């Protein structure tokens, strides 16, 4: 029956009385009994022996009694604790309801802070933290070639095959490419995202069809009958979700048969709907034509760095063997996540950091208003301390109020976060953040709960400690008005300085983004976007099997457009400005060594265009002539180059009449083409990027890629208004061509919309921080004036100039603001360095931006302290002194 005694959690000091109580009580009993027996005539010795016998086992009884009592006291203490908590909460509710304005302000301030943080975090969580929806996503990597030009590029086909065969770091390596094609044979002609993948692709991604099968080994051949697997979504939406899809023939790039359906949610790469064997697109044996994007699965336990090293080593002998028709210097392996998160990473982390600073500003603001309230409540707290509330008890009471405020703030903040998140996703550039990619999951909720606790500690604990340290005697004697000691004034000054500093940091950061954005909008892109409308002309491969049919289509369309009303100039090109730097390849200039020794520098971007493309796009022809109608397929081959290319290849000499040719593009070497014109450099990729050298062929002389061209129309009036007429003209020729119009202005704007997004969000944070700083200064100076009104009244009564008094009051505030600005300036210099990658045309320590931020804060600080300080000058000395 002996039970092991549980380890006793009660501290020794509490246990002692229990032991003592029980011991004493039992001893007493024995004593009483002995005395009674003695009175009955027993001898003392016999009496005691009888008393003990009648009692039983003293030791075990005392032990049992002690255990029972200890247990009882423990549960009593728990009940007391909960009771006190309930009391604290009730009391806090009462206190807060008595000051509805303060409570509302505090809750809303926090709600904004928590809401902003939660919204940003939900996007960060969805885009950057959520694991990719593939099996063991941490093993998936992208593979690139590191090229002589210092960048990364996709792999060439032969390099891919060599690496795939030789590298041991991977459990599989697969190539893929993406395209947007036209689909015929389903319900309506529509555009689909297609992917071309190599045989290992589905193994690397570890995806199995839910219906049908994957393409078989024999179907990954150039001459195999085309087959495809489709996405679950495509199967449901376009094919009716039935089992009978396998008998249907569809037409896109090929006449093909569907053999399988992939599981729901799988869309890699680029949310594709159709996956074809990559071999169907033909082979390209060039080692400088970078056409294959590559995804691989690292062997378990290996890091991307291991992959890098192995690929670098494999590249050395390849380079020796294939130079000079080889431009890779090594391989680069990066987590697939980086590719998927893409350009979002830096802006999102910046915004997350900024929203953290904003929350800190909100807490600081609240801490100072809690202190002001605390001073007003000093009397109440002093009374409570006087009637016996311990300091811990008072801290707990005041902290409960803070916790209540931040809990309310969290609830409202979650509501705000839902709205903000929607706003963020609307504001975010299309495709930057997938809506379903930012769910409110448990992690987001946990994050906001953590924030709630953190804010309660930040803005509540400090004031709670301060407020509870009042000495009852002093506070009660002096009354509430004088309890603002020098110490608490110093604390307020610190809080105000912190608010100012945070506002300086956020203002500087958003100022830099603003200046970057304005610098970007002032960039001369080298083309004129106003009045230009564009459309993708995607000719279905199946109906335009012969590229000459495609050429004929464009010839005919451009002839019609030349006479159309409202059209100033119309042209076509394979890639618009801003669309991306590929494709490109090496060129060989006539008269120069066929293949220069040493680093290969002959890279240039490859484009095709129609005769009036440069007019339509507004790209100025700087020398020579644009294409004209005589530059036909059978005429001498001609080419137009950018200024940059002309300077690189023929610097100081006249480039017109010179000749060059392309290696490796479109298979094999081509004949030389003669330079007939030079045009301005334009951004092929991001507008802020380097303007790479490029050249254009007439599409009629290089028709290989004419099935997918972009129509460019310069209009006299509003370009969007011309779209219906243009669509009519295109469909008069071929009604099966799907069209999506976009103005060039829109393309330009959306190419920088991620920057605008980051800037707008950061700027709104900065404005809120500025507002908080202003309110904080105003509140503290107002309170100081009210508190010192007696002293001020005496000064004025003794003959001090009211304006001097006002300057004195405001001067004190401005010193604090100045300190905040200096601290914030240091923080901003350190902080803005981290955002260098997001800046354009401005340095992270740009003095003008910092100057503006400081100036703005000085102005706001001056106004916020001037308004209440003015009141000090208006104090009536008689009333101020009498009011005590």
């Amino acid at each position, binding site marked *: 029956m002996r039970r092991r005694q549980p380890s006793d959690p009660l501290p020794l000091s509490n246990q002692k009385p229990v032991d003592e*109580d029980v011991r*004493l*009580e*039992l001893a*007493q*009993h024995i004593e*009483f*009994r002995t005395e*009674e027996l003695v009175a009955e005539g027993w001898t003392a010795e016999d009496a005691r022996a009888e008393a003990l016998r*009648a*009692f*039983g*086992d*003293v030791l*075990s*009884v005392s032990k*049992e*009694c002690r255990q*029972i*009592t200890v*247990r*009882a006291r423990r549960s009593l203490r728990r009940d007391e604790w909960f009771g006190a908590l309930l009391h604290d909460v009730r009391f806090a509710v009462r206190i807060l309801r008595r000051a509805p304005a303060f409570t509302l302000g505090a809750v809303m301030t926090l709600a904004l802070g928590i809401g902003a943080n939660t919204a940003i975090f939900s996007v960060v969580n969805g885009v950057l933290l959520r694991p990719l929806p593939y099996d063991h996503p941490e093993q998936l990597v992208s593979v690139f070639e590191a090229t002589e030009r210092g960048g990364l590029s996709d792999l060439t086909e032969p390099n891919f095959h060599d690496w795939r065969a030789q590298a041991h770091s991977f459990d599989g390596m697969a190539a893929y490419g993406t395209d947007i094609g036209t689909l015929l044979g389903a319900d309506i002609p529509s555009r689909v995202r297609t992917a071309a993948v190599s045989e290992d692709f589905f193994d690397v991604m570890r995806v199995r069809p839910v219906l049908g099968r994957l393409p078989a080994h024999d179907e990954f051949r150039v001459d195999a009958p085309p087959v495809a697997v489709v996405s679950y979504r495509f199967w449901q939406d376009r094919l009716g979700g039935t089992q009978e899809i396998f008998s249907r023939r569809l037409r896109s790039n090929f006449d093909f048969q569907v053999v399988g359906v992939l599981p729901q949610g799988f869309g890699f790469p680029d949310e594709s709907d159709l996956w074809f064997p990559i071999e169907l697109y033909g082979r390209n044996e060039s080692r400088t034509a970078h056409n294959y994007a590559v995804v691989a699965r690292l062997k378990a336990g290996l890091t991307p760095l291991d992959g890098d090293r192995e690929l670098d080593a494999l590249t050395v002998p390849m380079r020796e063997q294939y130079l000079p028709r080889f431009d890779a210097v090594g391989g680069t392996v990066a987590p697939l996540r980086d590719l998927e998160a893409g350009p979002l990473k830096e802006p999102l982390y910046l915004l997350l950091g900024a929203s953290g600073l904003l929350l800190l500003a909100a807490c600081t603001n609240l801490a100072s208003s809690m202190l002001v309230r605390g001073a007003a409540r000093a009397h109440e707290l002093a009374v409570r301390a006087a009637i016996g509330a311990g300091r811990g008890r008072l801290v707990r009471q005041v902290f409960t109020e803070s916790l209540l405020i931040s809990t309310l703030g969290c609830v409202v903040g979650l509501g705000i976060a839902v709205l903000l998140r929607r706003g963020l996703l609307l504001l975010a550039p299309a495709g930057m953040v997938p809506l379903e990619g930012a769910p409110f999951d448990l992690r987001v909720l946990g994050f906001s709960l953590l924030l709630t606790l953190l804010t309660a500690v930040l803005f509540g604990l400090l004031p709670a400690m301060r407020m509870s340290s009042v000495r009852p005697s002093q506070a009660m004697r002096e009354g509430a008005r004088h309890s603002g000691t020098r110490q608490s004034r110093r604390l307020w000054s610190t809080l105000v300085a912190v608010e100012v500093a945070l506002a300086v940091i956020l203002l500087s950061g958003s100022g830099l983004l603003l200046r970057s954005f304005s610098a970007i909008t002032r960039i001369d892109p080298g083309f004129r976007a106003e009045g230009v409308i564009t459309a993708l002309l995607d000719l279905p491969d199946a109906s335009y099997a012969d590229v000459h049919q495609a050429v004929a289509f464009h010839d005919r369309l451009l002839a019609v457009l030349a006479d159309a009303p409202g059209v100033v100039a119309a042209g076509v090109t394979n890639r618009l400005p801003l669309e991306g730097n590929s494709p490109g390849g090496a060129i060989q200039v006539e008269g120069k060594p066929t293949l220069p020794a040493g680093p290969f520098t002959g890279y240039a971007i490859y484009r095709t265009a129609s005769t009036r493309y440069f007019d339509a796009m507004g790209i100025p022809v700087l020398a020579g002539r644009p294409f004209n109608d005589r530059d036909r397929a059978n005429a001498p081959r001609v080419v137009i180059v950018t200024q940059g290319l002309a300077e690189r290849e023929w610097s100081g000499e006249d480039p017109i009449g010179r000749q060059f040719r392309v290696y490796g593009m479109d298979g094999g070497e081509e004949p030389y083409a003669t330079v007939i014109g030079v045009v301005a450099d334009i951004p092929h990729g991001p507008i802020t990027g380097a303007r790479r050298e490029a050249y254009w062929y007439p599409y009629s002389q290089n028709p290989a890629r004419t099935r997918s061209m972009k129509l460019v129309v310069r209009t006299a009036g509003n370009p969007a208004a011309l779209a219906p007429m243009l669509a009519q003209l295109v469909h008069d020729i071929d009604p099966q061509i799907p069209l999506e119009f976009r103005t060039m202005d829109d393309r330009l704007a959306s190419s920088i919309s991620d920057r605008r997004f980051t800037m707008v969000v950061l700027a709104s944070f900065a404005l809120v921080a500025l507002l908080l700083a202003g309110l904080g200064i105003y509140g503290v100076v107002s309170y100081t004036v009210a508190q010192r009104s007696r002293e001020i009244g005496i000064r004025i009564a003794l003959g001090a100039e009211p304006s001097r008094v006002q300057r004195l009051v405001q001067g004190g505030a401005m010193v604090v603001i100045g300190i905040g600005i200096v601290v914030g300036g240091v923080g901003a210099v350190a902080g803005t360095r981290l955002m260098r990658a997001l800046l354009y045309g401005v340095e992270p320590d740009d003095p003008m931006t910092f100057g503006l931020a400081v100036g703005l804060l000085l102005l706001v600080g001056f106004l916020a302290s001037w308004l209440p300080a003015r009141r000090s000058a208006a104090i009536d000395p008689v009333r101020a002194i009498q009011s005590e």
Partner: protein
Amino acid sequence: MPNELDLFQGTLDILVLRALSHGPMHGYAVARWIREGSDGTFRILDGALYTSLHRMDEKGWIDAEWGTSERGKRARFYELTPAGRAELQQRASRWDRYVSAVALVMAAPARA
């Protein structure tokens, strides 16, 4: 004392509650009251009384406090709480029903 009886399980509690229903008492007084009230019929070790007291203290039926005994010594006094009073009433009525039922059966005439 050869004629002593063992107490039924739980009976001690009801006796203690009953003792305290007259007013606050210390443990020894309770023990004496039971001994004298029963004419020494029950075989109780005094120690069992104390575990009973402490257990009922934990349950909130009685309250304990240190005080001074009639002979001027410090002693721990026990007092019935309202919950204890209710408990006593409930148990006492159950006890009465139990005893009278047993008595009824014992007194029943033999079957015809």
